[in-house]
């Protein structure tokens, strides 16, 4: 497999310099390394800028409703285990409208990988606050600044019992590509939250802003300790860790059984 094998002919509708281009490339890179035929890969998405991603990859695509990528992905994976199922979604899609499905699909633990283009804003609908928007960001709706506490998706995922939780940065494409590949190879529900600059609507969390803050977890980091994972995941502000924050093995949905009494 080469990059070209995953090239879609659909013209892209993203803004120039959108962080999603980096994520797209990282994803394709991971798929090349994965080595599976495009026909055996399914990308599922909801609605939003990030959710357009499946159209830009040559692979099967199910582009469903805003917020509802996860249930559709669960259904597809459970019905057809031959498919490698990857969800490409946004912070609004996955943590806002789709919040309930995130929690409960983590509990189900199907073998799917969820890549969230987290631009901390609603891009497609022109710049409202998302659950991850930083406090006091001003938007057309939050005219006096966002007063809701921003959500930490990683902490949320850990609290629901996720076995694989990672954070990437759209500009660190090689690093991200590795994360995505690890997520796909992980047996179970893998959440990868990706810091994604939105050059049009998020004037705060820019390439530069993120670049100045992100640092990579190195090999000294213990990624199988829940307490440490919680602590690391809470880190946000001047320093933002990227990498695999938590990874432990868990039985997947299709493998789980109870002792018959």
């Amino acid at each position, binding site marked *: 497999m080469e990059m070209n094998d995953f090239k879609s002919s659909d013209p892209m509708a993203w803004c120039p310099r959108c962080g999603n281009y980096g994520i797209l490339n990282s994803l394709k890179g991971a798929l090349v390394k994965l080595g599976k035929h495009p026909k055996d890969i399914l990308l599922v998405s909801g609605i939003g800028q990030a959710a357009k991603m499946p159209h830009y990859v040559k692979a*099967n695509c199910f*582009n*469903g*409703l805003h917020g509802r990528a996860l*249930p559709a992905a669960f259904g597809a994976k*459970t019905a*057809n285990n031959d498919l490698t199922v990857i969800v490409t979604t946004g912070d609004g899609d996955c943590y806002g409208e789709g919040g*309930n499905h995130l929690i409960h699909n983590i509990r189900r633990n199907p073998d799917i990988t969820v890549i969230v283009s987290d631009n901390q804003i609603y891009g497609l609908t022109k710049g409202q606050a998302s659950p991850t928007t930083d406090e006091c960001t001003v938007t057309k709706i939050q005219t006096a600044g966002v007063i809701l506490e921003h959500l930490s998706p990683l902490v949320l995922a850990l609290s629901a019992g996720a076995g694989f939780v990672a954070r990437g940065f759209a500009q660190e494409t090689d690093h991200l590509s590795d994360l995505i590949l690890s997520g796909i190879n992980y047996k179970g529900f893998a959440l990868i939250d990706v810091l994604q600059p939105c050059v049009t609507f998020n004037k705060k969390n820019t390439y530069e802003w993120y670049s100045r803050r992100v640092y990579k977890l190195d090999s000294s980091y213990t990624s199988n300790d829940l307490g440490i994972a919680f602590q690391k995941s809470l880190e946000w502000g001047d320093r933002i860790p990227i990498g695999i924050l938590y990874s432990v093995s868990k039985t997947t949905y299709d493998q789980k059984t109870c002792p018959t009494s």
Partner: protein
Amino acid sequence: MPSEISVRITGEAGQGTQTIGDALSHIFKSAGYHLFAYQDFMSRIRGGNNFFEIRVATKPVHAPRRKPDIIICLDKSSVDIHKKDLAIDGILIVDQTKFRLPGLEESMYDVAFNEIALRVANDALYVNSIACGLIAGLAGLDFAFVEQGIQAVFDRKSKDIIQNNLNSARAGFDLGLKNPRKKMFLLPVISKDRLTDKAGEILLDGSSAIALGAVHAGCKFYTAYPMSPSTNIMNIVAEHAAREHIIVEQAEDEIAAINMAIGASFAGSRAMTSTSGGGFCLMTEGLSLAGMTETPIVMVDAQRPGPATGFPTRTEQADLDFVLSAGHGEFARVVYAPGSAKQAYDLTMKAFNIAEKYQIPVIILTDQHLQDSATDAQAPDQDNTAAERFIISKEESAGITSYKRYALTDSGISPRAIPSWIQDVMYVDSDEHDEAGHITEDAEMRKQMVQKRLYKKLHGLLQELEQPTSFNTKDARVILLGFGSTLGILQEAALALEKSKVGFVHLPQVWPFPSEEMLKLLSGARMIISIENNAQGQLARLLRRETGIKVGKSILKYDGRPFDIDSVIEIIKRELEL
């Protein structure tokens, strides 16, 4: 000697009215009678007042009576609630030894259930089997049938328990035989022939019918969020899950349920979900998604009275309008409204085939009354009902290297491939899309896609209508009209008033509307009366919208209870000045 009797067993939630009912149903079925049994219960787990009513007859029966001949009150407060409902000459069976209620009229038959249970089986629980035996004795059955019924219901219990139940039933039975008024309830004995014929019959309720229909149609993915009165379907499918390799998954909410089902269907499984009105609301966006992505899906709306939480455990037919237009935007759908358990089974099978053939959502519109009512019915013959898959087969798929999910065709139906089976990839989208499934903003493509999803598919669906059932419509003075669970009422009312030129038309499919057939059936009618369990006469409105025909009258009931046949006949007679 009456040709039928109706028996009501009433008590608090948790007192086992349903167990008695089930046992009685089995007993009378064993004896070869026809029966119709339904339930009336409150939205609570203990206390309150519930009842189970069974109508037993020598000919097929399909609907409740107004006044039961026998009412067994399992608790004190039942007496006050139900005594007004008793038929003239009926009896109210009460454990006066225990309740000591003053001022009960002579219609009362005092049975010391509690004492007998303690004496015969050393446990007050056995009251239920005494009651069963008692009814059987009053109806003059052979005790062998009681034995069969008890065995059937307590199938999985220990020998001792079964024996205790049998002893209790015997005690009740003897009391029944002894009752001086028992002649009032003695049923004609059923012929040997019928007993042999009925070998292939089972007791079928709406929930089982839909569940079995789904299982036999090859449903492999069933997901729902619990909601009365739809939950039993999932329970029954779950019983078959392991053997039939069905994934049964409880969703976190109804939105998840429908989207999971759509995902599963897209990836190759026949998929279904069920709910009631409130949950259906939450599924409407998904319904629209199924329409847009052309993903086959079968949905059940088991209606209960709304709005909002309403009466969670009661019945209504008020979601008709809603399901016809639910979901934003325009696309073809099918809505079936079965009138009997048997029809529910058949239409569930058909629902899967039509959904897959036309790549559309199909809705089965049922209600609490149908779901929770049981009758004797021919056992469905699974071998006769092979499910046809309308997808590109695995073999053929292997050779496909170039594929467009939404290829434009004359029929509006694009050959449907399953992802990973074919050699190409496929794109499915909830945005407007081109033939390849990619997002488009093109006006011309949009037009063609709307025509594909709407007009063209409707055109095909009109060839596969489930036509109305009708009776005595020619030269009718009155044609009764209904859909869904009122079939039994229509049948019995028209039969009873056949000589007065009363006929009926019942729609098991309400969308696409069978306009042509309706015009044929109804155009000669001097008067049409719609009989509906809703407050607006929704079917009557639909009829007018689709055919221009206006009904003369609507008999509407919206108190959460089903129609009873006596009241309906009375109203019609009054209308006809009979």
